[in-house]
């Protein structure tokens, strides 16, 4: 069954996720497929110009807005600073103006940032900037719309959020912990204020806090998700590799209480995998959490259908681990860190979402530390699977349930055959190598033997003519001797 889910092609091709420059880090859609580093290099030049243009646009909008405001309010005159109440008044006038007001609001805040700081800020490319700003504008509009019903409290919240965003911009070069601390303090103080000063009931406070988180984090996401100052990106890559290396882990090893042979169950498993992969595409921590929660609910359904009883933690956690291994969700570490740093803490601490998130943290910790013992395997087995020398997945096609699709059965038979062929081929290559080595050894051996013999019996060639001549001249009796034998010469 584990094979089944592999075939479904849920896995996103890894190469699609990597930086376009091929530096090995992850790319991000928001950075046009580059990693943060390469992306910054890429847009170094266009940035300066963009900042200038943005500022000019902001100033123009501000002027226009002030003129329009002055003319509509008659003698009241223009206020130097923009306030939420002014905003509210304006909104009732005209629809189109709302948009410019929102823009102006934030551009005016960015103008308060010292010039140097602003230049160092990561400005997105023009096209991306526009695309992102459409979304942030939409979020801002919705936020303002939402706050309107809270009147004075809403006004105050908006003011505080503006201050928070400005401060975040100032802190861009600070450590991520400091930025997180700041946002967390902001959440805490705002929630307390809503309750104490504005006497809001706690359910409403939760509501408002969710909207605040959405507003703040939509705007801050690109600066604080997987920031360069941390090694989140490196860890993402390590986790990704680790999960890939663990591809052989089966649901039996983890004691996962789901039976994927039941179509509804396997359907739930696919949905759970899709949800957890989707998490990376969300910008707001709470939206990311919602993906984890949806994934968890699908897991519970799968367990409930299989076991017909409500899932306990001992059912849930192994299944979640299994889903994470199957899904290999992009940038898992970055997402967990981002949620931990910037999610509204009350949600993480006691809420249902927090429970599922905690289990995801557990799943990742388990995967990082996973060893032979945690899968009830011997160390040798584990090592062999890890090194790819063996695979526990080899399923016998004969053991398949009778209702399994014929084509699938045939495919597995073929796969089996192929792997057998592969084994034999490897054996042949191995033997051939051995033969080659034997031949080389034999040649070397013979050469050495010959050399040894040559050394042992050196070939001495002595001069021939002198002793023979002496015999001939001085010994007369030798005349009676028969003529010396002539050496016989054979051809070839």
């Amino acid at each position: 069954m584990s094979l089944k889910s592999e075939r479904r092609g849920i896995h996103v091709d890894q190469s699609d996720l990597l930086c376009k420059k091929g530096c090995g880090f992850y790319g991000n859609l928001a950075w046009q497929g580059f990693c943060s580093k390469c992306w910054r290099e890429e847009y170094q030049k266009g940035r300066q110009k963009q900042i200038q243009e943005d500022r000019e646009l902001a100033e123009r909008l501000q002027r226009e807005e002030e003129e329009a405001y002055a003319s509509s309010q008659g003698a009241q005159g223009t206020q130097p600073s923009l306030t939420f109440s002014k905003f509210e008044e304006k909104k009732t006038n005209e629809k189109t103006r709302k948009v410019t007001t929102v823009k102006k609001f934030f551009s005016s805040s960015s103008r308060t940032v010292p010039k140097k700081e602003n230049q160092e800020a990561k400005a997105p490319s023009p096209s991306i900037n526009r695309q992102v700003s459409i979304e942030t504008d939409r979020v801002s509009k919705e936020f303002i719309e939402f706050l309107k019903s809270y009147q004075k409290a809403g006004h105050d919240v908006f003011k505080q959020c503006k201050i928070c965003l400005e401060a975040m911009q100032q802190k861009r070069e600070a450590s991520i912990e400091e930025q997180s601390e700041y946002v967390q303090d902001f959440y805490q103080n705002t929630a307390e204020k809503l309750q104490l000063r504005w006497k809001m009931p706690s359910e409403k406070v939760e509501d408002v806090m969710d909207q605040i988180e959405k507003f703040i984090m939509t705007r801050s996401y690109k600066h604080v998700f997987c920031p360069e100052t941390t090694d989140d990106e490196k860890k993402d890559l390590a986790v990704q590799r680790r999960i890939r290396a663990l591809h052989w882990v089966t649901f039996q090893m983890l004691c996962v209480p789901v039976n994927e042979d039941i179509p509804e169950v396997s359907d739930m498993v696919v949905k759970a995998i899709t949800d957890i992969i989707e998490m990376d595409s969300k910008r707001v921590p709470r939206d990311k959490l919602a993906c984890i929660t949806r994934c968890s609910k699908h897991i519970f359904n799968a367990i409930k259908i299989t076991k017909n009883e409500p899932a306990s933690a001992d059912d849930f956690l192994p299944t979640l681990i299994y889903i994470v291994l199957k899904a290999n969700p992009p940038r898992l570490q970055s997402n967990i860190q981002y949620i931990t740093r910037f999610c509204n803490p009350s949600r993480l601490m006691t809420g249902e979402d927090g429970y599922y998130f905690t289990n995801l943290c557990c799943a990742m910790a388990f995967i990082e530390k996973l060893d032979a013992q945690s899968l009830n395997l011997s160390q040798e087995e584990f090592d062999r699977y890890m090194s790819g020398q063996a695979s526990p997945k080899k399923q016998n096609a004969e053991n398949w349930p009778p209702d399994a699709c014929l084509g699938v059965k045939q495919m597995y038979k073929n796969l089996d055959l192929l792997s057998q062929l592969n084994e034999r081929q490897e054996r042949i290559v191995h033997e051939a190598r051995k033969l080659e080595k034997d031949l080389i050894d034999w040649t070397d051996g013979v050469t050495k033997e010959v050399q040894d013999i040559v050394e042992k019996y050196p070939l001495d060639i002595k001069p021939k003519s002198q002793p023979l001549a002496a015999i001939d001249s001085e010994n007369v009796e030798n005349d009676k001797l028969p003529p010396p034998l002539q050496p016989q010469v054979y051809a070839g």
Partner: protein
Amino acid sequence: MAAGAAGASKTYSFKVVLLGEGCVGKTSLVLRYCENKFNDKHLTTLQASFLTKKLNIGGKRVNLAIWDTAGQERFHALGPIYYRDSNGAILVYDITDEDSFQKVKNWVKELRKMLGNEISLCIVGNKIDLDKDRHVSVQETEAYAESVGAKHYHTSAKQNKGIEELFLDLCKRMIESAQADERAKGNGSSQSATARRGVQIIDDEPQAQSSGGCCTSG
């Protein structure tokens, strides 16, 4: 760590973790408490790993979140990730199973080491309907609980005994310690943002040394 503030309309949010060996009845206890059901095959509940209960104790509203934890041995190292920021822990053993009480002792040691006295501990001997098979002595367990600053309870999920009392008592204790926290905070300074959200400030917590957490920023 209780969300909320002073005043009549205050709502406390508490996180309680369930710990204990397999089969001691953790799931049964919490299902009995939150759904008043036991071994019911027609349970409409989708899951029993995270359950909530709203209570009103003397005019104080309490949102209780009960976290089941994976009890298998191979998940033991993940404990700190589960129980961080909990206000209370319920440590369950089966009175017919000596070993399960030993496990509880181990958990107590670990929790005290990691969380100090910030957490309200309950030691629960479950399955008292099986008293004839009791293998754990009442005196021993109660003496032990007292020695570690925990409270001891006897329950039966099957017969619905002692469970309401257990949770009610735990909530009262958690409210008390939350109030003590608030007072300390009030006396200290106006800086109210400390001692909250342990999710974030991991570095200065003792559990950082366990290196088991995936969320530590180190």
